[in-house]
C-alpha cells in the first residue's frame, strides 16, 4: 500500500438509539480532507469526535450522509488504514515484534518479509531491544509506541488516531508527538487525529476542526500555517500562541471552559 487517499464526509451524521430513546451524537458533517493532509479534530469530552473517527474507519455506520475514503464509499471496515486508539489494545499473547507483525498476518501478507522494516520502526520509536518482550513487561508509553508502529508497518495511505497520546504522561506525550511528525514527514499519509488537547492539535495538524459539545458539529475550521518540521520550537512562535488562543476563546464562549475556577468547598 502506498500513496495517500482523500477522505470526504457529506452530511454524515450519527444518532444512537437505545429502545425508544435517541441521542444525537453528531449533526450532519461535511469535511473534505486532502490526500496527505494532517487533519486534527479537537473538542470536549463526549462531543462525538471518537464517533466521527469510527465512522470514517467504517467500524460503525453513519445514520445519514455518505463517507468516502479514496474512491470507495465506506460501508464496512476500511482496510486502507492504520488505527491507533487511546489504549494500546495490544495482543497480550504476542511479543512486541509479534504484535507489529499481526497487522500483516491478519491481512494475509508475508509477515517475515516485513520483519526488517518492523525492527527499524521499533528502533525509531526507541524500542530497540524490546522486540521479544510481552506487552505486560512494558510501560504504558512503550505499549502505545508499539501500537503506533503496528498502525504504520503496512504503510497505509490513511492513519486514524483516536486520542493516541491521551493516557500518557506529558513528557512521553511530547516525545511521541515529535516522533509522529517526523514519521509523517518521512512517509506522507492522510492523518485524522482526534484529541482533546488544543496544543497537540495545533502543533501537529495542517488544519484543525474545532467541535462543539454534543450534539457534535464542526464549529470552526482553522488552517495552521506553521513551518515544518515544527519540532519542539514551534510552541514559541506567535502564530502558535494566536491559534491556541483562538480555540481557547471559542471553548470559553461555548462554556466548555470557564475562565475562573468555580469549584469551592463548603
Amino acid at each position: 500500500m502506498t500513496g495517500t487517499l482523500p477522505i470526504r464526509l457529506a452530511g454524515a451524521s450519527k444518532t444512537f438509539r437505545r429502545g425508544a430513546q435517541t441521542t444525537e451524537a453528531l449533526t450532519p458533517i461535511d469535511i473534505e480532507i486532502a490526500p496527505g493532509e494532517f487533519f486534527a479534530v479537537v473538542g470536549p469530552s463526549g462531543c462525538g469526535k471518537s464517533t466521527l473517527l469510527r465512522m470514517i474507519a467504517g467500524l460503525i455506520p453513519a445514520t445519514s450522509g455518505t463517507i468516502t475514503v479514496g474512491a470507495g464509499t465506506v460501508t464496512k471496515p476500511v482496510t486502507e488504514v492504520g488505527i491507533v486508539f487511546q489504549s494500546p489494545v495490544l495482543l497480550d499473547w504476542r511479543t512486541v515484534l509479534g504484535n507489529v507483525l499481526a497487522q500483516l498476518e491478519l491481512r494475509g501478507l508475508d509477515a517475515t518479509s516485513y520483519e526488517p522494516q518492523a525492527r527499524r520502526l521499533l528502533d525509531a520509536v526507541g524500542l530497540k531491544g524490546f522486540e521479544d518482550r510481552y506487552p505486560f513487561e512494558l510501560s504504558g508509553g512503550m505499549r502505545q509506541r508499539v501500537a503506533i508502529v503496528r498502525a504504520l508497518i503496512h504503510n497505509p495511505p490513511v492513519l486514524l488516531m483516536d486520542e493516541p497520546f491521551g493516557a500518557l504522561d506529558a513528557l512521553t506525550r511530547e516525545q511521541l508527538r515529535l516522533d509522529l511528525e517526523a514519521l509523517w514527514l518521512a512517509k506522507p499519509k492522510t492523518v485524522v487525529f482526534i484529541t482533546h488537547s488544543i496544543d497537540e492539535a495545533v502543533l501537529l495538524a495542517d488544519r484543525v476542526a474545532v467541535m462543539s459539545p454534543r450534539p457534535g458539529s464542526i464549529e470552526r475550521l482553522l488552517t495552521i500555517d506553521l513551518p515544518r518540521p515544527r519540532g519542539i520550537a514551534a510552541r514559541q512562535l506567535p502564530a502558535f500562541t494566536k491559534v491556541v488562543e483562538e480555540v481557547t476563546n471559542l471553548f470559553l464562549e461555548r462554556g466548555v471552559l470557564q475562565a475562573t475556577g468555580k469549584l469551592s468547598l463548603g
Partner: protein
Amino acid sequence: MSWIRRIAQPLGLVLAVLAVWELAVRLFEVPNYLLPAPTAILADLSRRWPRILGGAWITGLEILGGFALAVAISLPLATGIAFNAWMARVVYPLIVAFQVVPKIAIAPIFVIWFGIGWISKLTLVFLLCFFPMLVNNVAGFRGINAEIMDFARSTGANAWRLFWRIRLPSALPSIFTGLRIGAVNAVTGAVVAEFIASDKGLGYLLLEYNGNLLASAVFATVFVLSAIGLAIYYAVEGIERLAIPWHTAQRRNESVGEQT
C-alpha cells in the same frame, strides 16, 4: 532453585500437621476405627497397594475419559454459541437451565440406562466437567476486548483468521479456568459414580473398606484419590503455563490469586 524454597514451606507444614496427628492419636489412644495414625495409614497403604493401585487405574481412566470428553464437546459447542446468534438464543439458555439440575441426583438413572460399566461413570464425570468448561469457554469468547476486534476488523481478516489469531488466544485464559474447575470436579464425579453402582475402582474400595470399619484403609484410599486429583490439577496448570505464558506470568507479576 526458587521452586525448592516455594514447596519447602508448605511441605514442612504438612509434615508438622502429620506429626501432631500421629502424636495426638498415640497420646490419647484414639481407637484405630475412629482415626488411624498416619503411620498406620501408611502401613495399610503398602499392605493393600496392589488392590488400591488397581482401583486407582480404573478410577483414573474414568476421570481422564470423562474430562477429555467434556473438553472435546464443550469447546466446539462454546464456539458455536459465541458466534452463532441462533445457538446463543436457543441452545445456550437450555444448557444453562439444565446446569441447575443436580447431576448427582440423576446419576442413579444413568445406572438404569447404561448399566454399572464405563458408560455411567463417564457420563457423570462428563456432566460435572462439562458445564463449568462450557460457561468459561463461552465467557472467554465473548469477553474479547472490543477495540482489539476493531483493530482486527480494520485489517479485513476473514472469520477463520480472526478465530485462530485473535478470538481463540484471547479466550484461552478463561478456557483454562474452566479446565481447572473441571479437573477438580472430575475426581468427585468418578468417585460418586462408583459409590452409586460399581464392582471396581477406588470409590468401590472406599465403600467396602468403610463397611468393614477399616478406617486406615479408607484413609489410604482417600490419599491416593487426592493424589490423582492433585496430579490432574497440576497437569492442567502445567499445560496452561506452557500454552499461555503471557497470562500466567502476568498473573504472578500482579500476584492475583486463583480465580476458580
